């Protein structure tokens, strides 16, 4: 499917992802990375350093003594939250847009992305080591960025899209987007991932998180993980608006992820708790 020209232009006109964000993404994917590796990258960026210190010193972390260096901050925040903060800062223009085309409030994309990141990281633990939880987390943060780009083109047509998606004439909400625009948020997200020169695994997640069976072989476990993380996030009330839950779960997730009902309930619970803590830390005054 060729992207409509105007939407492709919207993607191409976006600034490249800053170097330090790219380096953080690469570093976190390496299972043998250290806190120092992350600290070194963060310290090169004053705005990022400022954000990291503000979050770690927020009431949510309950630290009695103020933390003044990045190297001391990162062990408290964890690598994942550090990368999350970096991505939010680098792509804040995309993450913080309100999604009118989905009747999603301002902040709903960031909340959904963060909750999907946490849920995906939790679910990665049930892949028998096939999926690196850190990689699942970063993939979760980025998976729905395509929505930020196409939302403006869907404005005013939300009711129609919901009706189409619910009608059964299309597979899911992506089908409704496609009928309306000639493309959907996963295709646009993949185009963004390519524009930003993200690693193939992340391109696959953005492209196939709603239809994981279409991914290529080495990436199937990661894509299925984010597929499920996305559902946990939507089920837990952190959707992006009109499309929430209007997708089909691919039952073949069980080929890569072995999770019982009770374990899923625990994932739901832990995701909720970690999400609450993260939100209150990141948005502390």
């Amino acid at each position, binding site marked *: 499917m060729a992207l409509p020209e105007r939407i492709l232009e919207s993607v191409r006109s976006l600034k490249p992802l800053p170097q330090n964000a790219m380096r953080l993404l690469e570093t976190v994917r390496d299972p043998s990375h250290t806190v120092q590796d992350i600290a070194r990258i963060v310290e090169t960026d004053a705005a990022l350093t400022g954000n990291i210190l503000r979050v770690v010193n927020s009431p949510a972390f309950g630290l009695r003594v103020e933390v003044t260096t990045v190297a001391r901050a990162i062990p408290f925040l964890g690598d994942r939250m550090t990368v999350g903060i970096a991505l939010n800062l680098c792509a804040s223009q995309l993450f913080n847009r309100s999604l009118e085309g989905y009747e999603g409030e301002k902040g709903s994309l960031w909340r959904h992305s963060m909750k999907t990141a946490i849920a995906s990281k939790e679910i990665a633990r049930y892949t028998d080591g096939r999926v690196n939880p850190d990689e699942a987390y970063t993939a979760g943060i980025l998976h729905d960025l395509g929505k930020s780009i196409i939302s403006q083109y869907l404005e005013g047509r939300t*009711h129609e899209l919901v009706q189409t998606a619910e009608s059964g004439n299309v597979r899911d909400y992506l089908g409704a987007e496609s009928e309306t625009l000639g493309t959907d948020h996963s295709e646009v997200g993949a185009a963004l991932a390519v524009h930003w020169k993200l690693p193939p695994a992340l391109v696959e997640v953005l492209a196939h998180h709603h239809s994981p069976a279409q991914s290529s072989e080495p990436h199937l476990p990661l894509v299925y993980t984010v597929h*499920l993380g996305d559902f946990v996030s939507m089920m*837990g009330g952190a959707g992006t608006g009109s499309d929430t*839950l209007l997708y089909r*779960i691919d039952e073949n997730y069980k080929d890569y992820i072995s999770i019982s009902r009770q374990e899923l309930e*625990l994932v*739901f619970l832990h995701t909720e708790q970690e999400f609450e803590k993260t939100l209150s830390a990141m948005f502390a005054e």
Partner: protein
Amino acid sequence: MKTIILGVGDYDVTNTPGQQLKTLGLGSCVAVIILDPVSRCIAMDHVALPESKISPDRARQKPGYFADTGIPALLEAMKRTGAGKNHQKMIVKLVGGANVMDPNNTFNIGKRNVLAIKKILWKYGMGPLAEDVGGRISRTVTVDVDTGRVHVSSPGRTDWEV
């Protein structure tokens, strides 16, 4: 109109005129709404999961999080607000419990929540008068003290009442 917003696992009761209880983003979670015509109080619990045995700690922090600890807590809170003991006279409405159709029967938390809630209500001789549950939809619900009306909304759809 003073709105009291309930988060996941929160519950509250009020009979103060002009107030309303509201909860947002009900995906697989279920809002258990109980209205007592005798004391004119309205009560709501945002239930996330069916059984507390998976995390007694969580149940201690937030009894409203689970159906089996939330409903008794809600009824107790109603009693403290002056509701009568006659549970059968109360009006129960359920909103939420959206479903993910999973042939592996793992992701159907919404359905399990609704069943667990009904089972517990039944022990008190109660059953829902009305329900707006299931489907593939995220709901926001508001209940008014003054009118007892239960108002539901969801992005991309026109508002409705239950």
